């Protein structure tokens, strides 16, 4: 029937499976590099800081579109500069007709933000339509900051608890270091390039956590399986074997995710470009950390070698 119509053909097994890349040989280097990256990110965060968006900094953002097709940024700058609203940023956004105006948080609480918005809208006058308005008052922005931090921390904790439950504490320790690395380095990149950091960045960070731990779990599953299979193999060698065995999957899934994210980044529109960019960066960092941080850490921490059924019984409910 229908199945006969589908041609039988093999896919391209692009991956040289007899290749054994010596990942573990470079584990010291990789971990040293990651530690440097984390420290550099922290230093950037504390010295250069983050370019917070309206969500976290408060203030207003207005996206305008010129009705005649071309926005006159310098004229707008002149008009809005006279209002005495402190820092008003005007930049081209997307096409030539669009501009994005950012007004820094005004002193005087929530009502003051609305007053500033009203002034700007009046000063801009006709000739522009409002495409998007975002105003976040001081109370809400500080709440969003707090929930953002809590959400990322809770995300890490929940994942670690899950990994601990399914594996052993060494795996959970590896996961927590890898996840912290992912978050820190992404934040560091945001600080270095001063990309806007807002609520959607936090959502992207959480998704990255999910993706990164996904990779870590796949490698960990294989490590556990190999621990049962090769009871006498040297741990570092075993870890290296597990990474290599799952490498074809890691690369293929990574390439698929990156392809999709690049499509979203290029065609998905200006509004979520930031979000897609974060995810793109995060997927790359997350893949790196599973291979070069989570697994090698097991080599340092050591791991239980007796995974026979008697030893496992009563501990983790693993069936594999």
């Amino acid at each position, binding site marked *: 029937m229908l199945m006969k119509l589908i041609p039988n053909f093999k*896919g391209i097994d*692009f991956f040289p499976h007899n290749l054994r890349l010596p990942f573990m040989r470079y584990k010291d280097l990789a971990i040293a590099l990651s530690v440097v990256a984390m420290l550099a990110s922290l230093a950037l965060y504390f010295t250069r800081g983050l370019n917070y968006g309206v969500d976290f900094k408060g203030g207003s953002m207005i996206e305008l579109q010129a009705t005649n097709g071309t926005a006159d940024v310098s004229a707008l700058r002149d008009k809005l500069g006279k209002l005495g609203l402190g820092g008003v940023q005007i930049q081209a956004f997307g096409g030539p007709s669009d501009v994005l105006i950012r007004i820094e948080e005004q002193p005087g609480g929530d009502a003051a933000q609305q007053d500033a918005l009203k002034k700007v809208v009046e000063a801009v006058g006709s000739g522009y339509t409002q495409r998007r308005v975002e105003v976040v008052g001081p109370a809400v922005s500080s709440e969003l900051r707090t929930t953002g931090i*809590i959400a990322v921390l809770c995300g890490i904790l929940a994942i670690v608890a899950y990994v601990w439950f399914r594996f052993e504490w060494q795996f959970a320790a590896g996961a927590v270091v890898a996840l912290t690395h992912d978050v820190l380095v992404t934040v560091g990149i945001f600080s270095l390039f001063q990309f806007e950091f807002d609520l959607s960045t936090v959502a992207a960070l959480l*998704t990255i956590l*999910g993706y990164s731990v996904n990779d870590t779990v796949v490698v960990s599953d294989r490590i556990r399986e190999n621990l049962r299979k090769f009871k006498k193999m040297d741990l570092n060698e075993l870890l290296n074997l597990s990474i290599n065995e799952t490498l074809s999957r890691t690369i293929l899934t990574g390439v698929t995710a990156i392809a999709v*994210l690049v*499509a979203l980044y290029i065609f998905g529109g200006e509004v979520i470009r930031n979000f897609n960019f974060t995810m793109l960066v995060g997927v790359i960092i997350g893949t790196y950390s599973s291979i070069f941080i989570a697994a090698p850490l097991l080599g340092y921490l050591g791991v239980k070698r007796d995974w026979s059924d008697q030893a496992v019984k009563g501990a983790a409910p693993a069936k594999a």
Partner: protein
Amino acid sequence: MLHFSRMKILAIVLTCLAGIVFALPNFFAKDVVAKWPSFVPRQQMNLGLDLQGGAHLLLAMDQEEIKKDWVTNLRDSVRRSLRDAKIGFSGLGIQGTQLQVRLAKPEDKDAALKELRKLIQPIGNAILGSSGNDLDISEGTEPGTINLKPTDQGMKARISSAAASSIETVNRRINNLGTSESSVVRQGTDRILIQFPGLKETSELKKLIGETAKLTFHEVHPSTSAEDAKLTAVPPGYKIYAGTGDESGDFLLRETPVVPGEDLADAQPGFDSRNGEAVINFRFNQSGARKFGAYTKENVGRPFAIVLDDKVLSAPRINEPILGGSGQISGNFSVESTTRLAVQLRSGALPTKLTIVEERTVGPSLGADSVSAGQTAGIIGGIAVVVLTILAYGTFGIFAVVGLLVHLILTLALMTAIGSTLTLPGIAGLVLGVAMAVDANVLIYERIREELRAGKTPISAIDAGFQRAFITIADSQLTTLTCAMIMFWLGSGPIRGFAVTLTIGILTSIFASVTVVRLLISYWLKAQPKGRGPLEIPV
């Protein structure tokens, strides 16, 4: 593992069909779907404000003001009940958030306490019973003083009821902006969220909800002017109010109004028949009309004040008793402002001023642009996934693509059926979900290849591939689910949409990428010609 019972096959096919039926309306225009017969599902997915355009306003109530109003009202009640009980007092003042009564004779203390305790109201509900009182009444440290202190529970209850009545009032006011599916809901303790799809311009909305619009009618002090009172002392029970509009000076008015704002039954914009000025025509309800009639009858020749939000609009002289319960307010209004004020007055006063603490408005053109951008990105991303999967896994790759299609359809169907909202990050979540779902197939197929390399027979390799990979798939999906849950909890609007899409995507991907693909492979196995050499697995 590769054997499916009849019932199971039927269940899988029915699930897929149901998915198609529920997802289908999303691919047609609204007016086309409306013509469909009523027995097919016609529900379409809700689009978030970021996709269809609209306004999102988060308002905060002023807790301090609610507290102050309560204590002020309490003072009036205390004064009344002590007078009624003929207990003399020499002082009654507000200290911070509590009220202190100083009795004229300390020996009246017990009688006063008994009288004042009647003001206490229990808090609670019919089901759970009372959970405390709204007031703490205790003797003060000085002899002959009594302190009345609002409790935290009482305050909470006040805020709750203020929120409920604010929501009603806001709803009534914004209904005047046109028929639309606007929603007004409470958020947290003291906040109200307005979501207004399709609204292009928020300035009128903001003006409508920007005033409390409390209209009251007050007695003007018969002999002392505000200027005199400022120099000497404000007589007890009176307060200085500033004028607005035509009335430039200050007024000394009795604080308790003759007719409170709640007694207003109707208000309409109109014009003064004599000078053509824009005015508000109002009408009291029965009790208001009676109070106003009685007051104007006794005070012919004296002025009274019409006060809006603590500002005196006008202070006309009472020329004759007004018994009909209706009247006219002038106050140097524009036609636009009388129209708005009439709406506000008809809708009732807000219990407290609402401040906008967060605003997110998306114009309809941006929303439409986002939808088309999301579609383009989705299609291109989808094509990339399809090409990569088929290139990597051949015939089995085609099965995986079918699984992805089922995954996508079921996700859309579930989102439509539970009425969740699709946001722009939600579209990203949908596309990303496809990439994550493909991971399940990658895990399975890589495993099959590995088992084949290890020398297993084709069928046992497929079997082992599904079995071994499933544990890993479940583990990885559950961790992603954890993140999605946290995002939902953190979430405001669009991000919640992303979390919901991600969650549904995870749930459907196990069925689509594992069960459906396994079924397809089992059919493929059956279709292979027997006895023509060893079976080649096209993976």
